[in-house]
């Protein structure tokens, strides 16, 4: 069922960016606080990611997941606390790719899939220069990795929802992103498209791409990711799914909005009753 070609990831090796301090974790978040006019968004959030790790971020709507991603991407300044990516402020890095939850791109914009993926290289190519053969090779390889080679010359409105998400992953690969922040990319996708997306993500494991992935489905979070983070303004829990998705943690995060069905031992059958796919 997985027809995606698995390519060897020669070009995508970490440490390709200047300004990465040796021995520093790819991401360190320390005591992050942010208040909006409407109230508290994040309170005292601290954690670290190691290179190549994939972290699922779950929590109710409005829990601050998108805010956290924007701060890590360097697009939003926290009130206090610190984010460091390879030991330095994220706003100086071009190794972070961020896919917002509601991607307001104009799907009728006159660009092909290939054009969009090449945009990931805009900064690497540099001002006053045009893509070289090596840039085109990197774009081709990124398209192969996500299984979109045959769609390269299509205008982007002709892609399905799942293909659109994979195009953005290819763009992140072309950007040579070490840290991918994906805010609910599977919301609204059918199950086969979700599976395709996860198998692409699995194929990136060898390339040591670190992934933070917000989603609502706790079962998928538990089955597809190394660690999970349960967020509700503050960090309710982080670690192995079995130790994070406990009845106590979940009722702290979701209150009455979730049904926790204890199932024998430590395993819980969980349903996020507040937020079905299709979202906000």
């Amino acid at each position, binding site marked *: 069922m997985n027809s995606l070609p698995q390519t060897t990831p020669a070009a995508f090796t970490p440490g390709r960016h200047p300004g990465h301090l040796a021995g520093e974790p790819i991401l360190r978040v320390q005591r992050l606080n942010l208040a909006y006019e409407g109230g508290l968004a994040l309170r005292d959030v601290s954690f670290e990611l190691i290179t190549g790790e994939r972290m699922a971020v779950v929590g109710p709507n409005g829990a601050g997941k998108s805010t956290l991603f924007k701060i890590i*991407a*360097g*697009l939003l300044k926290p009130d206090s606390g610190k984010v460091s990516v390879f030991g330095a402020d994220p*706003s*100086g*890095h*071009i190794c*972070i*790719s*961020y896919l*917002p939850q509601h*991607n307001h*791109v*104009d799907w009728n*914009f*006159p*660009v*092909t899939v290939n*054009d*969009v993926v*090449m*945009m*990931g290289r*805009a*900064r690497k*190519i540099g*001002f*006053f220069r*045009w*893509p070289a053969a090596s840039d085109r090779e990197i774009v081709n390889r990124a398209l192969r990795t996500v299984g979109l080679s045959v769609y390269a010359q*299509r*205008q982007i409105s*002709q892609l399905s929802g799942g293909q659109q998400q994979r195009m953005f992953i290819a*763009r992140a690969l072309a*950007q040579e992103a070490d840290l991918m922040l994906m805010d609910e990319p599977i919301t609204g996708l059918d199950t086969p498209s979700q599976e395709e997306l996860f198998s692409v993500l699995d194929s990136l494991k060898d390339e040591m791409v670190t992934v933070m992935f917000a989603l609502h489905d706790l079962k998928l979070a538990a089955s597809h990711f190394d660690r999970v983070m349960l967020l509700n303004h503050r960090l309710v829990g982080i670690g192995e799914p079995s130790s994070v998705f406990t009845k106590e943690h979940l009722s702290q995060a979701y209150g009455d909005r979730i049904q926790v069905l204890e199932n024998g031992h430590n395993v819980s059958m969980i349903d996020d009753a507040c937020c079905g796919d299709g979202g906000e």
Partner: protein
Amino acid sequence: MDWLLTPLEYSFMVRGMLAAVIVGVVCAVLGTYVVLRGMAFFGDALAHAVLPGVAAGYLIGGGARGPVFWWAMATALLSAFGIGAVSRSARLKEDTSIGIIFAGMFALGVALISMVRNYTADLTHFLFGDVLGVSNTDLVLTAAFGVLILLVVLAFYKEFMVISFDPTLAATLRLPIRWLDYLLIALIAISIVVSLQTVGVTLMVAMLITPAAAASLLTRRLSRMMLIAALIAIFSGITGLYLSYYLNLASGSAIVLTCTAVFALTWGFTNLTRRKTSARPAGNL
């Protein structure tokens, strides 16, 4: 073939056509961004906001072209950045801020020109253009700025594409978004000033958006959209001036009407073919 060559015996017709072609190409290429970024109202407003600069240059220079050009240039750049600043800072919707500045500036221009009673003919030229009055000096200035604008668009092609398509990506690539936005706005302002004499402030927006809009119906690639828009503008400039010559029409409106006709035909044609192709099962292409 005589009917094609006769008008060209007049040197003002040749200069006018050259000016119309240069202006058409520059506006069509920049207009691609104007259309894709939804800046049509901004472009229209900016063209109108230039009028007080034109008037001031006219009054100070006693009718000479040079001061008009440079005063218009300064006014266009100031208004462009002014509109940008006001729409960012004020708690108003952007189109409201633009509307206030544009109408106020336009009124100021009309007021200034009305101070000189006998010069209503010149006001008409500023409002609707006077491409057949283009001098050699005008032509050189137009060409110089036209080439400059096209070179900058070429130099920042991929950056302008990224900031127009996906500002979030531009931000994570740490591109200087604000600087690039201002550069694009400045280019639009300069192209407006360069085009003033061809179509005037009131019809200016048509040069920016109509060829680009027609091109957007015909292609799904940005570079091709620019090329097709430029070809439509060249065709419209030349055809418009022939129409103006033989039908004794105002030159600026003849050019704009040709653009509009090309757009209408394109729109009708693409709608017809789309209806045909959508009858077949989709999925190819």
